[in-house]
């Protein structure tokens, strides 16, 4: 066995996985990774099940040191500079830390959450099948709270498998897609239009429980009190002050504010990775389209192993290269490690 020690870590970082399902009827919060695609990609790179437990690293930096042997890890999600002793590590690749080596992650350069998967997974005591941390309920394992410097994981020794990268599809851009409802009839047409036609920003006071949205005040038709009913990931509720809150993974299982719309499954991770202060819009789609996207999203995750490539092959992104049309970028592109950095504006 090796150990992976958290040498340093910012707030809002915790162990997360696919979530704690099956006990919402008892008020048990689901929790789990904010960006499921990135969770699955990181796990796939080190041969884990897609929804195995990983370290969800919040917007600030972190560093991890291998002890008592080598540890193989992979990173995916919000892009950031990463290195081992000054030698860059690319996003969406696996890498093996030799005994004593430290992987350092910088601040997220867009988005918020980056996933560090560990070969063989994180060992802990599952509750309802999950190690996911819900700090409010004191749940999660091996640490039922956000991670702190000095925490450590007992992990499998690195297998020595060749390093891999994963070719993820080009990120979807454009509005965050929603389905209206379940309580869109608590709002008149003008206010539904205001919700769909306005530009929104995520407030800095957001967290894993909910993203507060800054924009125009949305008015209710009959007041803001409804009898509590169930919530889902991506429910957008409108409290009395008219400022919508998108409910995220640590949401309460029920809530008493009208929910004007629900973010489609395929876009919940995109919303989670929208940085505070970045302007974005919503777009209403049909049930047929939303379910089609949900099925494609599930299929994308199922088929992630087909997207694995040897890390030795140069990750030339011809399309991006010609779009960039700058000699300097072409030089960087030869090294998959720095390409990610150079491609950032």
């Amino acid at each position, binding site marked *: 066995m090796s150990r992976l020690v958290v040498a340093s870590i910012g707030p809002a970082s915790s162990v997360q996985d696919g979530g704690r399902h099956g006990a919402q009827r*008892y008020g048990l919060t689901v929790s789990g990774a904010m960006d499921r695609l990135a969770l699955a990609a990181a796990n796939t790179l080190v041969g884990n099940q897609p929804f195995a437990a990983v370290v969800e690293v919040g917007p600030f930096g972190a560093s991890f040191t291998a002890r008592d042997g080598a540890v193989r890890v992979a990173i995916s999600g919000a892009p950031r500079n990463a290195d081992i002793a000054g030698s860059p590590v690319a996003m969406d690749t696996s890498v093996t830390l030799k005994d004593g080596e430290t992987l350092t992650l910088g601040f997220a350069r867009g988005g918020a959450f980056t996933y560090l998967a560990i070969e063989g997974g994180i060992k802990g005591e599952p509750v309802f099948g999950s190690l996911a941390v819900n700090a409010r309920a004191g749940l999660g394992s091996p640490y039922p709270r956000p991670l702190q410097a000095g925490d450590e994981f007992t992990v499998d020794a690195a297998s020595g498998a060749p390093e891999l990268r994963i070719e993820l599809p080009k990120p979807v851009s454009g509005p965050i897609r929603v389905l209206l409802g379940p309580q869109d009839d608590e709002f008149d047409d003008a206010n539904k239009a205001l919700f769909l036609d306005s530009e929104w920003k995520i407030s800095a006071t957001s967290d894993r429980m909910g993203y507060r949205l800054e924009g125009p005040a949305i008015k209710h038709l009959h007041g803001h009190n409804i009898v*509590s009913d*169930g919530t*889902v990931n991506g429910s957008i509720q409108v409290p009395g002050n008219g400022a919508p809150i998108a409910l995220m993974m640590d949401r309460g299982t029920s809530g008493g504010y009208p929910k004007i719309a629900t973010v489609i499954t395929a876009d919940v991770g995109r919303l989670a990775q929208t940085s505070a202060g970045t302007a974005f819009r919503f777009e209403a789609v049909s049930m047929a389209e939303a379910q089609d996207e949900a099925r494609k999203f599930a299929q994308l995750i199922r088929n992630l192993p087909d997207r694995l490539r040897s890390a030795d092959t140069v990750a030339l992104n011809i399309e991006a290269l010609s779009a960039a049309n700058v000699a300097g970028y072409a030089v960087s592109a030869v090294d998959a490690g720095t390409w990610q950095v150079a491609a950032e504006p």
Partner: protein
Amino acid sequence: MSATLPPPRLLPSGDSAVTVEFSRTIDDDANQSVLALDKALAASPIDGITESVPTYRSLLVHYDPGKIGFDALGEKLLALASQPLPPATKARRWRIPVAYGGEHGIDLEDVAKALNTTPGDIVARHVAGDYKVAMIGFTPGWSYLSGLDKSLQMSRRRNPRLLTPAGTISIGGIQAGIQCLAAPSGWHLLGRTPVRTYQLHRNPTFLTEPGDRVTFFAIDHKTFEEQDRAAEAGEIVAEQVVA
């Protein structure tokens, strides 16, 4: 599942859940229909449903759109909901000990004043109630009870408290509650129970189920301390009666 209610509405809750709404208000008939549909689904599962969450007035059904689409599922749910209510089965009944007033029920005296009576009378009315677990939500084990005596119904606190203790027994509006974990609350705190409705590593982890019946009985504060220690060690200090 009720002769008195119109058929439920199917409200899309994203692409992977649907809310089957029986009523917009708190209504015992609606809650009965919710719990009946929930039971019917447990008895004859529909492929693709992953989880159901009963509330006062609706059943939230989570499902996998890769297995069943909204229209097909909606049809099946409406068909199940249109069946007559099954005959009432024997409900479990929990007798829950409560240490009323003092440090454990800091609002008891204010509630008595507001209702022009004595704390003892408030306790007597609360203990006389026959409650039903209408739903569990908000935080693990938080049991929302219907059946609060009309004379105890009063609006919630103007300023919700940021933290109220684990085990709080409270009333708010037309509802009563058993709170398990420490949590914010705008309800009136009458007392505390040593009973844990949720406790990890205990079998069962969750004590109460939607549909269970509940009555309270008063214990003194010394008994509370004893039972609290026993409960912390994993004992179920509530008394179960099969009615």
